Structure formats: C-alpha cells, structure tokens
C-alpha cells in the first residue's frame, strides 16, 4: 500500500504552487487595474496586502469589503482515447476586507483579511482518469494582518504588517486497485486488473496556522512618479488532520484458473477488505504534514500622465523554489510515511494597469498581466493543471454618496494549453485547457 500513500498526497505541492490560482484578486479596485498597486495602491485600505506603505497618508477611517467570484472552465483531453473531461468547478467566492484608521497625518493603522492562497479544483469522478490523483481539492489560507504605515518624510513611506495565517486543506481522490500490491512485489496490474479500477475513496482534511510579515516602501520621485514595493515573507505551516478511507465496491469476482490460485468466484472486494479494518493500511487515522507558503513580493511604479490619468506597472515574483520537500506523516504505522520533492519553479508576473478618473463620481480602470507557472512539466496534475497565463481586466468605481463608493471589476484569464498527467507514473498523456471569468464587486466606505 506504499503506492497508495504516495498517490494520496502527490498533488499537494502543485496545489499551492499555482501562481494563477494563488489568488491575487483581493480587492475589486485593484483587480480592475490587473493588480498593479505596488507604488500606488487603491485608497481603500487594500494597501495592507498590496503595499503596506500605502497606508501612510490615508486620512480618516476607511472600510472596504468585497468579493471575487471565479467562474472557471477547463478540460483534459486524453491523447490516446481522445476522451475529454470538463472541469466541474462551482462558482468560487473569495472575499476580502480591510479597515484603516489615521492615528495622525503621518501614521495610519489597519487590519485586513485576505486569501492569497485559495483554490478549489473539482473534476467529475465518473470516467475521469485523473481521479486517482485528485478529483476535488480545496485549500483556503486566510491571512489576517494588522498593519501600520508611516510617512517618514515628504518622499518616503514605509509600512509593515504582521499576518496571522489560518489554513485549511481538503483533498479527495480515488484509489486504483491495479496499482496496489497483490502479493509482495507483484501489483494487481501485473495480474490483469485493469487500470482505473476504483476500490477506495480517500479524503484528507487538515488545518494549520502560522505567522508571516508583509512590509514595503513607496518613494515619491516627483509629483508624477512614484516607485514602490512590498515583500510577504514565507511561512512553513504545520497541518494536522485526518485521513479517511471508504471502500468502493468493485463487484469483481475472480475467474477460474486465476493467477492468485484462489477459487473461481472469489470476490475481489473481500480480498481487499482487510486493508480497511482497524490497523490496515487504509484505516482511518491522523495525518500530519508541513507546507511552506513561499515568500512573494512585487516592485513597481506609478506615473501620473495627467491629473486624472495614471499608468502603473508591477513586477511580481513568488519564490516557489522554497517549496522543496513535503513529508506526509501518518500516525498509522501500517501506512508508510511519504516524502515528496515537487521541483517547483519561481514564478514571475508583469502587471500593467491604468486608471482614469472620468469625473468626481466615476473612475474607470483597465489592465493586463502575464505570469509564468510554478509547476514543472513533469508535475502538471488534475489538482492544478497550471501553465503561463495572459489575463485582461477592467473595472470601475462609482461614488454613490460622499462616503460610499461602489466597485466592480472583471477579469478574463486565458491559460496556455499544457500537457499533463492523469495516471500516476504514466507521464503526460493529454492536454489541459483552462480559462476563467472573474467578477469582482465591493464597497468602500470613508468616515
């Protein structure tokens, strides 16, 4: 059953390695300008994540909240059979909120809640070959970050935040009987059991928490040009949870003269049943793991072309190279521990945004971003069939009253098609496609 244990967690690193699914849409205003905010964050408190120094000079009290709704579509086409399976994702909601308070003209403090690592990937179980790597994966990592921004002088702002992280991991997959060992050294596949014979459903639920620091600075070069950046430190989080296994009936019976030498008509389900009882390799039990949420940062500039028109550009990177080793530790001694080496790559993104204040009430935004993927070509799985992406955004703010601003934004993600795997150990045997429509809506209040 060692093989099973490997497969159960094979996809976890990839889940977290996603630059694209590592949600960057933590604010509707910023989403409209493709996330370009390092030098000039939106004046609604979202600087807490995008550029903590941007809090400095934010007068009064601000409260903003909103949500991004992600409608993702994708598919996997198997190249031998040409069978196409479509992603079965629900509409995913990613909320965020920020509150700030100007202690003095130079010092502003605030607190924000955002989810920089969030994902749900869901494939249909029936007929999808990749269900043995994962058919439903969820990860929620919420950062709650108190932050302070300080105006050092008339050209320098600095900011720092201390984020409490609470993270939840949920993974579901089927287990393929053909990959299991029938007798030591001989798999069921070698005895003729067909690839894709479901005999167990496995799930893992685990939670963990930790702390990270988000800091940055903004330099005002002149009245038109500002340069800024921020850095969110890495954090290794220890997850504790439970692994649960449920037997799936194969309803198979051994034919006469089978290579196991068992009587004709012997139910296969009875053969594997001992694996599920207490002490068996597939019995329920606690599981522990640690995952490093990698550091990320951005640097960029904002150039005010006209009094009402600003152009922004950011470079962002996530250092996925830190994500080197993952050890899965089962309390059940019958289930061997597993160590994974995901070989992820650092990711890089370019974000271009512009903002045009049409009137005192209406501001419009647009943007474009491109980013690379973290997953190496030998680790593109159903959990996150990731690749480089081109994304286009648009948005608008409308001042409903002197204190209330309504925000809307739209983002289209087009991911490059990518070859990937669905069968453990079989290599890349098909092509994943992915695109998504994101809708943002939020409200910013000023007091």
């Amino acid at each position, binding site marked *: 059953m060692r093989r099973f244990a490997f497969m159960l967690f094979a996809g976890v690193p990839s889940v977290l390695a996603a630059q694209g699914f590592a949600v960057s849409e933590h604010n509707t205003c910023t989403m409209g300008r493709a996330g370009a905010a390092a030098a000039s964050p939106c004046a609604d408190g979202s600087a807490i994540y995008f550029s903590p120094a941007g809090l400095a000079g934010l007068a009064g009290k601000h409260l903003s909240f909103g949500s991004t709704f992600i409608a993702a579509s994708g598919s996997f086409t198997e190249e031998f059979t040409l069978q196409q399976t479509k992603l079965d994702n629900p509409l995913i909601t990613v909320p965020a909120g920020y509150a700030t308070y100007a202690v003095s003209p130079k010092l502003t403090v605030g607190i924000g809640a955002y989810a920089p690592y969030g994902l749900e990937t869901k494939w249909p179980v029936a007929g999808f070959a990749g269900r043995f790597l994962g058919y439903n994966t969820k990860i929620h990592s919420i950062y709650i970050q108190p932050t302070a921004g300080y105006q050092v002088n008339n050209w320098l702002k600095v900011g720092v935040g201390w984020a409490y992280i609470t993270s939840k991991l949920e993974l579901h997959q089927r287990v393929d009987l053909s990959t299991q060992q029938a007798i030591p050294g001989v798999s069921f596949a070698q005895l003729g059991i067909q690839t894709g014979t479901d005999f167990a459903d496995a799930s893992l639920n685990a939670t963990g928490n930790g702390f990270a620091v988000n800091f940055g600075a903004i330099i005002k070069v002149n009245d038109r040009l500002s340069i800024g950046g921020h850095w969110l430190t890495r954090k290794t989080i220890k997850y504790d949870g439970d692994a649960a296994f449920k037997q799936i009936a194969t309803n198979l019976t051994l034919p006469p003269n089978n290579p196991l030498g068992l009587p004709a*008509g012997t139910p296969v389900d009875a053969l594997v049943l001992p694996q599920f009882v207490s002490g068996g390799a597939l019995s329920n039990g606690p599981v522990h793991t640690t995952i490093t949420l990698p550091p990320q940062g951005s640097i960029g500039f904002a150039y005010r072309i006209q009094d009402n028109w600003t152009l922004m550009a950011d470079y962002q990177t996530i250092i996925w190279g830190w994500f080197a080793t993952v050890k899965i530790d089962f309390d059940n001694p019958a289930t061997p521990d597993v160590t994974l080496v995901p070989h992820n790559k650092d990711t890089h993104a370019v974000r271009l945004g512009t903002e045009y204040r049409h009137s005192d009430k209406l501001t419009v935004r647009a943007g474009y971003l491109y980013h690379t993927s973290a997953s190496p070509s030998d680790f593109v799985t159903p959990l996150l069939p990731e690749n*480089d992406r081109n994304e286009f955004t648009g948005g608008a703010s409308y001042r409903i009253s002197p204190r209330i601003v309504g925000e809307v934004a739209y983002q289209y993600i087009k991911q490059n098609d990518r070859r990937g795997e669905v069968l453990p150990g079989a290599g890349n045997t098909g092509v994943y496609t992915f695109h998504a429509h994101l809708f943002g809506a939020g409200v910013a209040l000023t007091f």
Partner: protein
Amino acid sequence: MTRTTIRIGAAALGILLAVAACHQDELFRPYPNGPLDPMFTRYVSMGNSITAGWQSDGINDSTQLQSYAVLLARQAQTPFFVPLMARPGCRPPYTNIYARTRVTLPGQPASTDTTCALRALQAVPPPYINNTAVPSAEVLDGTTNFGTGTNANVLTSFFLGTLTQTQMMMKVDPTFVTVWLGNNDVLGAATSSTNAGDSTRITDTLTFASEYRAVLDSIGRTSAQGGVLIGVANVTLIPYFSKGSKFYKVKAGTDSIAGPDSASRRFPANFLVTPSCAPPHGDSVLVPFPSGAAVLAFARANPSITVGVNCDSIVHIQPSELVKLQLTVAAYNRVISAEASARGYAYFDPNALFTALPAGSIPTFPNVISTTAPFPAAVTTPFGAFFSLDGVHPTAVSHKLVANALIGVINAQYGSHLPAIP
C-alpha cells in the same frame, strides 16, 4: 502630448503582448493524423489464440504485437492497447519443438511448459484493452467466464482481469470490431491428444449459432459502425496434421519428406507404418504432429527402439471424424456469413486465403530433425513459413497476410482507404 503618450503606451503594450506570446501544448497522439477513418476511432478485436498473437505454443509481448489485429490497427492509425505479457511469456514460445525448448531470458532457469511471466507494466497503463482475444476461448467464452463448457484460464485473468471479452469490448465502446471466434469449438476436438477428432468435443451448430449471436448482440449495443466477422479456419488444413497416406508412401519409398540428405528424406527402419495408412483410407486419416512426425524424430534419435504410426488408432483423426469436422466448419461459417449479412458486417473467409497460397507453401509433412546431417529448417521452420513452431498458429508472415486481406475486405465493404501493409 496626450495623443503621443497613448501611442507610446499602446506600442509598449503591444510589445509586451508579443513577448508574452502563447505557447500552446498540443496532443501528442501516437498517430498525429489518425485514425485514417473515423470508423476506426476505437477498434476492438475479439477472438482466441490467433487474434491474441499466440505462436509456437506460447505468447509474449513479441508475438502479441505480430497479431493481424495489431497490424490492422496500425494501418488504420488508431490507438490499440494490447495486454502485453512480459518475457519470456506465459507460456514462453518454443524455440525448438523437437527439443521442446522455449524462450528463456538470459541468466534465468530454462523455461518450461509451466513457465508464466506476469503482465508487463506498460509505460502508459492501458485505459482499456482493445485486443480482447484470449487463447483457448470458444464462442461461449466471449460472454461468460463461469459455468460448464467455459474455458477461462490464467490468460483470461491476465488479459481481461475479471471481465469477459464482451464486457471489455463494451467498456471500450468500439466504433469498429473484428470477431474471429469459433476455431476452438472444433479445434479442441481435432487436436485432442487422446482422441483426435473426438466428435463429442465439437460444439453443435445450433449452440454455436446461439452463442455467436449473443456476442454480436453485445456489439450491437455499442457505438460500432462496422466490423468484420471472420470465418472459422478449417483446422484440418493446418500442417500440424499429416495424411496417413503420406506416411505410407514414404515408408513404401514412393514418396519422400524434406531433408538434407537421402537418409533424412526416408523413414528409418525402426519407424513402422501400418497398412491401414494406405490410400484411399489413409488419405482421410490425419496424423497429429505428436503422434506422427514427433515419433519419427524419436525413432531417428533412438534407432534401437521400434515405433510407428497405426492409422486405425484413435489418436488420429479418422475418416468419419474428418468429415464431421469439415461439415462443422462449413456449418459454422454459414452461420457467421449469414449473421454478417444480416447485421451489415463484412465477412471474411480465411480458408480461401490459405488455400490460394502457392503449392508447397504449407508443407504436407513437417521438417523433421535429422541425425545424419544439419537441417536448420527443422528447428526454424518445421511447419513452413506460414505456421509457427506449433504447427497450428500462424507466423508473423501469415498475420500480415490476414491483415492485408482484411484491409481489402474492409475497404470494399465500407469504402475506406486503409493502406495495405507493404
């Protein structure tokens, strides 16, 4: 100023978009332009040992890939998953039928009749099996693994897991099917080691028809757009059998067998042939290889021991049994042909293919090992170029012949343009 800035901004954005030009991965199909005909999107071959690729009394991942079904799939440029058996095989094919040596891996103990390797672990695990054929399968085995008269064996498990041929076929949901079942419904009788030609081991035609229709009904519930039903081979034409009269004539000196020298072209003194083998009776007695040519080889190797062939023995196919076998094959093929017509499938008669071969292509007597001079043909081609070392199953040459014949039949029936194998 503003207009210039817009232009510069647009140009910059354009450059960035160009730099970020998409790199799209594409499917890497085994046949990038295939299948040649949509009818071959998913091809399934049902059958028995011939279709499975059994040769020289054994099977492994080499012989399996020589099957006509694999060749046909290649010509149709359609993915085709075969349940490959690791070498040396299960059981390993003969390398010398007289010495009864079998394919053996270097450094391993010599393979025997009971040697059985496991299913090979393929780089891409087969999502299903296209070649569902199982050696020893009779028509009944197409639909069930259990019960009286079924022949499920270790290869049934290795190839299909716990499924039957029809269950696996339906799992694939084929668009095209070939069915070559029925040979074993008469071959078992013909090759019985205790009573060759035993009529009680022949599946009666009514039962055969019922079981055959059950297989076809299963195919009818799939997406199959076309298929070929292959007639039962006339098992009495295979070089595994030699006529009793041939023995008589060679012994009498009016005929000879192949050999490297004159002594090898005759029978030795310690190999006797009874008068019952004389024509015309002997013309209708078929002597199986183990009771005939193999005994001759034994006699040559053991000159002090007298052995021979008695054409009245039940170990040989007697004239009445021969008639029964031939009538059965003809009856089976009428059923198959009628079903093909009724269901819109093509029908292919393999017997016409082999009887049309040039004279001498199928030897009337095996090449027997010589003790007086080297005779490599007795080891490499004891049954000629068209039949493997067991005298029953076709060689790669024959499989190619069958595949090309099938291609012709398919193209004629369905208007496809599958290319012949050069």
